């Protein structure tokens, strides 16, 4: 130890401590590192809880709690280097900002802004919509799609794998274009020595055996927007005449899951005020219909909409998330896949130990393109004049992109700077923030408590798996953004 260390006064650094299956863990913030710790670390935390301690006093205190003198000194040095304990003022290091020329990885093509359903909560057509599609093309043409693929290849230089996601409106209302794009993009990617894959989101109403065969043959990932049992699904996912869409899609979904064998099929559930029975929804979609993965998200809405979930409703949702999370853990400890994607997605990020500058890849590695060729930060902002970041024919408007990224950067979200969950959350969805607060860079303060609760739950699951069945985590080892 050096003389300076002996003169130091220590305080606890920034971390979140949690327990799982009788073991103790630390989640170091903002690094995003997860450690399993022993009683010595517990003693250290006890020594410094609520008060500072000079070096010698801390060492004595640790020795009185059973540590050997040599071990105590080495231990304190290690904890200082790991930032578990700190000296002086705790000034968090600024988060690394992604480079200005961050290579593109995913392009979301909104093949059409038309839809054959009229779901009331839709962010593209509902009361809170940001899109201004008036006077713009309703369907993307092949020239625009082709230019988009070229744009993706050109802007993703250095990446081995790139992705195209098809979106809508209802994606399959422009299936002819989808087919053309898959053929063209696969050829272009092959010529460039790249790996490309495709995915789409659909309401499943227009699925046919031919389409399913095409999707399976081309390994196109499929996510179906579906809200649960007939009764739940038909509340808001309706045709223009008010008739529910469940009876139309249920047989098509079964056929899709049976015949599309090349990629896992996922369901994406939007939770609304009347549709919050998460466990029942999960059982129906996973067991009755056979989806491989089921993911949930509360509806994005301003708080005054009737379908918005209130505080009590959200607490109920979280309780049921816990039920499924416990189940997930039991499955994982047996090495089996459970299918609750909300857990898998978080575990993947925990495995890497992400420390995000931005909540998601929007405007960075991911961009959306509307039918008109306008570039948007993501599919949720497509067709919005205010949020457009350029046009596919002229490229990205770097000034607008920089403004969008600066607003969304964690450094500008002061409310987040004292939150231990910020390495993963980074303030939450840009679009949700805009709908709630009128600013894409506003932290989503209405769900902070839920995010912390959910992150803690996922940390407990991660810790338990890492301690009992670490092999299960290997599936999360490869990072999406680095491929």
């Amino acid at each position, binding site marked *: *130890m*050096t003389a300076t260390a002996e003169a130091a006064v220590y305080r606890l650094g920034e971390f979140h401590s949690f327990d799982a299956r009788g073991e103790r*863990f*630390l989640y*170091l913030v903002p*690094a*995003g*590192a*997860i*450690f*399993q*710790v*022993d009683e*010595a*670390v517990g003693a250290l935390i006890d020594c410094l809880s609520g008060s500072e301690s000079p070096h010698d006093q801390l060492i004595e205190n640790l020795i009185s709690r059973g540590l050997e003198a040599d*071990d105590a000194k*080495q*231990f304190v*040095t*290690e904890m200082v*280097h*790991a930032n*578990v304990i700190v000296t002086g003022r705790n000034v968090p290091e600024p988060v690394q900002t992604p480079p200005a020329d961050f290579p593109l990885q995913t392009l979301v093509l909104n093949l059409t802004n038309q839809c054959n359903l009229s779901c009331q909560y839709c962010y593209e057509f509902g009361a809170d919509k940001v899109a201004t599609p008036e006077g713009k093309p309703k369907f993307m043409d092949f020239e625009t799609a082709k230019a988009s693929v070229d744009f993706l290849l050109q802007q993703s230089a250095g990446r081995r794998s790139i992705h195209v996601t098809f979106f809508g409106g209802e994606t399959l209302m422009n299936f002819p274009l989808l087919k053309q794009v898959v053929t063209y993009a696969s050829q272009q990617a092959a010529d460039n020595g790249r790996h490309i894959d495709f995915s789409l989101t659909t309401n499943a109403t227009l699925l046919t055996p031919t389409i399913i065969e095409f999707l399976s043959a081309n390994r196109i990932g499929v996510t179906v927007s579906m809200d649960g049992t007939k009764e739940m699904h038909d509340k808001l996912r309706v045709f223009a005449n008010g008739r529910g869409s469940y009876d139309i899609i249920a047989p098509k979904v079964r056929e899709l899951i049976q015949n599309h064998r090349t990629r896992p099929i996922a369901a994406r559930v939007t939770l609304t005020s009347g549709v919050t029975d998460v466990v029942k929804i999960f059982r129906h979609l996973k067991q009755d219909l056979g989806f491989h993965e089921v993911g949930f998200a509360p509806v994005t809405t301003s708080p005054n909409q009737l379908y918005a979930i209130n505080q009590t409703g959200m607490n109920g949702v979280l309780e049921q998330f816990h039920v499924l999370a416990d189940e997930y853990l039991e499955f994982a400890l047996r090495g089996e896949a459970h299918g609750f994607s909300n857990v898998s997605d978080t575990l993947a990020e*925990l*495995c*890497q*130990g*992400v*420390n995000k500058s931005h909540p998601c890849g929007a405007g960075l590695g991911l961009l959306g393109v509307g039918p008109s060729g306008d570039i948007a930060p993501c599919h949720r902002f497509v067709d919005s004049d205010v949020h457009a970041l350029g046009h596919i024919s002229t490229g990205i408007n770097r000034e607008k992109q920089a403004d969008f990224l600066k607003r969304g950067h964690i450094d500008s979200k002061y409310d987040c700077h004292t939150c231990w969950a910020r390495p993963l959350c980074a303030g939450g969805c840009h679009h949700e923030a805009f709908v709630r607060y009128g600013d894409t860079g506003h932290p989503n303060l209405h769900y902070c408590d839920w995010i912390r609760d959910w992150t803690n739950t996922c940390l407990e699951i*991660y*810790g338990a798996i*890492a*301690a009992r069945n670490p092999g299960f985590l290997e599936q999360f*080892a490869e990072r999406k953004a680095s491929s």
Partner: protein
Amino acid sequence: MRHMRPLNKKAARIDNYVVSRTTDEDVVALQSPPAPQRPHVPMACSLMFTPGWEVDAAGGTAGLCQPVERDIYDCFVSCYWPAQVPDHLNNAPDWTSKCASATKDWRNLDLVFP
């Protein structure tokens, strides 16, 4: 680290960092892994431009630019030849007379036949 076990990739990086920082303060030589055994290849005197046994201007060893032990060390460590240079003091006093600078004039150092 003794009391924390890294469980994710970032933790592993921190663990490496901490271990590297905390071992720097110890005696590194003792903790360095042993060098792998390699064949002994003599450097040979011709690669080092060491004239070998020397005396200073007064005929002794006190005024040499390198201590005389250095010469002995050279013979002992890096050369397989027991005495690589002529006896400069008694039998071949003129051996280096045409070699003012070993790095430049080493070709003038000739063989000696007793």
